[in-house]
């Protein structure tokens, strides 16, 4: 080990510290349940409101003293008389320092509440004892839990207005318990009055039936279960190279602890080394743990720049291109699944898309419903695809490495906050296996050249009918053909997909891949799929690579399709019973230059099928006499 520049190695910063620690908590609940009053009360009763501020608020109070006036900062908020943005408040007692994320109560500011929760260890959820649980109370509890808060103090407020009755308190608690159980959060319930201060800092004589702690006592003593992961992980923020001798990785420990001599692996390069020194301005450390901002030097030169993660070899976080995540939508512009966003994680900035939106979360009922987009304040479950691998851990395992934001590329607006549910280990660890039998061998054995016939057109245009006839003709002639039907595929392979633009794209992507595999196996593949978007059809052609690919437009006017309506779909779509129905409520992009144009209004299905067979023969895929 190299010489230590300053003091001898010491224990980690956290171990060195003692005394007052820090609790970050969130205050939330429905508007008017008394949140501002409660915080004002806490600040005043812990002696933290300066006299001049108190006097200014007193002057502005209409009658009595309005504690809320101590808090609302921005002029716009004062004008509207509501709390819009998260405000941070600070107070401390002998036991603890507190950072309070004071979040707005209105439903239209749910996203701000989520932001406040993201850095909090605990939530104080306000309920008006007279009104009981409101939708907003449930909503806030759900979001707090989703953001990783495991402990909630249910502050049952305005007890002075219910004659300090135990019954009112218990009924709120009974109502809340099942919701909390579903969310897996621990609950401490406290009856109090923010206005009078009872059970806030001072114990209330008015509620002898309550023997638990006051709010402040609870805040001072609750042991917040740390979600911090056990194994060491350390995102590199920057590499310090003050001279050719020194190469230090600077960053903050995201989880676990590290000691000098420990083995580490750098993700994504996969190279490994050992910790040589843990450098700080105050001298080298022997070990460091979660939350410490340090500089690490390694025994070997390895590939690890900004964005890399140094981790314990037994618990390396995955670097992936795909993951599923919860998204809290924050922008006025709704989620656009086709759009390119920038993904910002604690370690990386990379172009990304929301490749599919699975569901929207009903945060009140705790139910998931299918959705096509997310509007401001919605929470949804989505699949994210990144242009290159990024480190993404489960949020449940590592709050730091599992969090991200999405940024709009044009406006630079932060449009969403995200939490990784599951990283999807994909191709990076899967190698392409080479096999001896080539496509030429298969072609020779089958006496045909594989091809993909891609039938596109609106529902009811006759794609399946034509496909069925073509397959029949070919099979009877001794050829090997197979129909991939868009509807049928949705019963199995694609049963997780809906009909939003993004899911249609994914539907077609999968069909294209399967078509290509079947063609590679030597078959003539007949795809019958609406495939309404030109770019998806172009992508299918690209996927086919060197396999003959023929886009066949089954061009049947919509009136005729609707009149045929074999599955009764047009009727239901026009009645508004089906959303996103091509030709009714979703677009169909006509092919500009199809390889073959079939006219459903004045050709019979057999004539159409014949034209397809002729095309295959002309292009040399099948024998001319088929």
């Amino acid at each position, binding site marked *: 080990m190299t010489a230590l520049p300053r003091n001898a190695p010491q224990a980690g910063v956290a171990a060195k*510290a003692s005394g007052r620690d820090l609790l970050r908590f969130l205050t939330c609940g429905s508007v008017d349940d008394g949140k501002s009053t409660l915080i004002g009360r806490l600040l005043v009763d812990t002696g933290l409101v300066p006299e001049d501020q108190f006097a200014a608020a007193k002057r502005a109070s209409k009658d009595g003293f309005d504690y809320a006036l101590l808090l609302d900062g921005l002029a716009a908020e004062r004008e509207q008389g509501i709390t819009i943005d998260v405000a941070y408040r600070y107070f401390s007692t002998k036991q603890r320092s507190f950072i309070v994320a004071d979040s707005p109560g209105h439903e239209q500011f749910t996203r701000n509440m989520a932001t406040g929760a993201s850095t909090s260890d605990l939530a104080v959820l306000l309920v008006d004892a007279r009104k009981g649980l409101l939708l907003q109370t449930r909503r806030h509890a759900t979001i707090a839990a989703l953001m990783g808060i495991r402990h909630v103090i249910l502050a049952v407020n305005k007890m002075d207005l219910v004659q300090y009755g135990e019954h009112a308190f218990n009924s709120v608690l009974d109502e809340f318990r099942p919701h909390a159980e579903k969310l897996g959060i621990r609950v401490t319930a406290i009856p109090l009055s923010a206005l009078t201060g009872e059970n806030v800092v001072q114990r209330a004589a008015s509620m002898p039936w309550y023997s638990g702690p006051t709010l402040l006592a609870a805040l001072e003593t609750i042991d917040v279960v740390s979600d911090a992961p056990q194994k060491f992980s350390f995102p590199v923020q920057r590499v310090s190279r003050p001279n050719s001798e020194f190469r230090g990785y*600077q960053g903050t420990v995201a989880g676990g602890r590290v000691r000098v001599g420990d083995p580490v692996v750098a993700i994504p390069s996969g190279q490994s080394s050992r910790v040589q020194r843990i450098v700080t*301005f105050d001298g080298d450390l022997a070990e460091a743990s979660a*939350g*410490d*901002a340090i500089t690490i030097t390694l025994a070997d030169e390895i590939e690890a720049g900004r964005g890399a993660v140094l981790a314990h070899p037994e618990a390396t976080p995955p670097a992936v291109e795909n993951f599923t995540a919860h998204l809290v939508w924050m922008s006025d512009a709704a989620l656009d699944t086709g759009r390119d966003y920038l993904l910002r994680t604690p370690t990386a900035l990379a172009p990304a898309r929301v490749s599919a939106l699975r569901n929207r979360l009903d945060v009140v009922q705790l139910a998931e419903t299918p959705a096509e987009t997310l509007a401001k304040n919605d929470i949804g479950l989505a699949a994210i695809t990144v242009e290159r691998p990024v480190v993404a851990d489960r949020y449940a395992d590592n709050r730091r490495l599992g969090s991200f934001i999405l940024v709009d590329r044009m406006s630079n607006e932060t449009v969403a906050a995200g939490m990784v549910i599951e990283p999807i280990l994909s191709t990076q660890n899967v190698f392409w296996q080479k096999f001896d039998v080539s496509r030429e061998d298969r072609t020779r054995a089958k006496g045909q050249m594989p091809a993909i016939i891609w039938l596109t057109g609106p529902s009811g245009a006759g794609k399946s009918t034509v496909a069925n006839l073509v397959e029949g003709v070919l099979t009877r002639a001794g050829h090997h053909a197979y129909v991939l039907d868009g509807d049928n595929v949705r019963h199995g392979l694609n049963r997780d997909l809906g009909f939003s633009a993004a899911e249609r794209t994914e539907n077609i992507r999968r069909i294209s891949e399967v078509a290509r595999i079947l063609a590679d196996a030597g078959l003539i593949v007949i795809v019958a799929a609406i495939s309404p978007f030109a770019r998806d059809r172009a992508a299918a052609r690209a996927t086919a690579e060197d396999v003959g690919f023929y886009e066949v437009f089954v061009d049947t006017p919509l009136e005729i399709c609707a009149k045929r309506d074999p599955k009764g779909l047009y009727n239901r779509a026009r009645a508004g019973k089906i959303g996103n129905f091509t030709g009714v409520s979703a677009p169909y992009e006509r092919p500009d230059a199809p390889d073959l144009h079939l006219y459903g209004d004045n050709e019979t299905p057999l004539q159409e099928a014949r034209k397809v067979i002729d095309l295959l023969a002309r292009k040399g895929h099948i024998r001319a006499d088929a």
Partner: protein
Amino acid sequence: MSTVANSPLATGVAPIPVRPAHICRIEAEAIHILRETAAEFARPVLLYSIGKDSSVLLHLARKAFYPGPIPFPVVHVDTGWKFREMIAFRDRMAKEIGFELVVHTNPDGVAANINPIEHGATTYTDVMKTQALRQVLAKLGADAAIGGARRDEEKSRAKERIFSARGKGQRWDPKAQRPEPWGLANTRLLPGETMRVFPLSNWTEIDVWEYVRAERIPLVSLYLAAKRPVVRRGESLIMVDDGRFPLAPGEKPEAMSVRFRTLGCYPLTAAIPSTASTLDALITELRNSKLSERQGRLIDGERGDSMEAKKIEGYF
């Protein structure tokens, strides 16, 4: 010259107390923010006002980049009306610590002889501080300016982001702030935009003083009580730091034991009567104090939201 940490008055400071856990956490957070700024921006600068908050910031920057040097210039906007001790202290720090110091004064303001006495606080602050800051940021091509503002200082600051984007002309739009979940910074800028970065956002005034004490950070001695020549202006005590201060006929500065809770330009910063001549005494006095920190700042007064209005204009 005397400073808090090495002044004779401060030698009574007790051995370094063990740092409370919460101080370790906010220190680590500030270091993280400083490193992030250095990594994400092409040309960050650190704004240094010579006060306690910027001194803490400077100290944190040394820690963040150790063993390397502070990788960006340290900028001081000199209004020409700082306390003399502050300027001497600034130059000494630059030499001792070895950072790149850039001092800027608005030349137009100097040419027009804009001063706080004749032109009033509003015009003076706009020309010599706000405009001057814009000039120097433009001159350096700075895309990020790191400042020592804290959220507990003032109500409108309580909602400002750690990474706070400024539009053209350094304006702040409180309604268009980017959310910062998990402290994840969206550091993207459009052409003409710049970023303000506040690593001390989550610090309180007491935190700053406890940290100054624990880390023995040198400060100008004006923060500690001493007998100084002051005159009364309304409710305020103003220190007469040089011959430019206009005294009323027959008026004589009286020697009073005072200290400064914040330091700005001397004619605009009121002193408070105090006998706290050591850091320990100061921290005790602060804990018992019933007045807010900005009470000594004469520019805040009038309207309830004047700080917010100034920030929209680009005041730090």
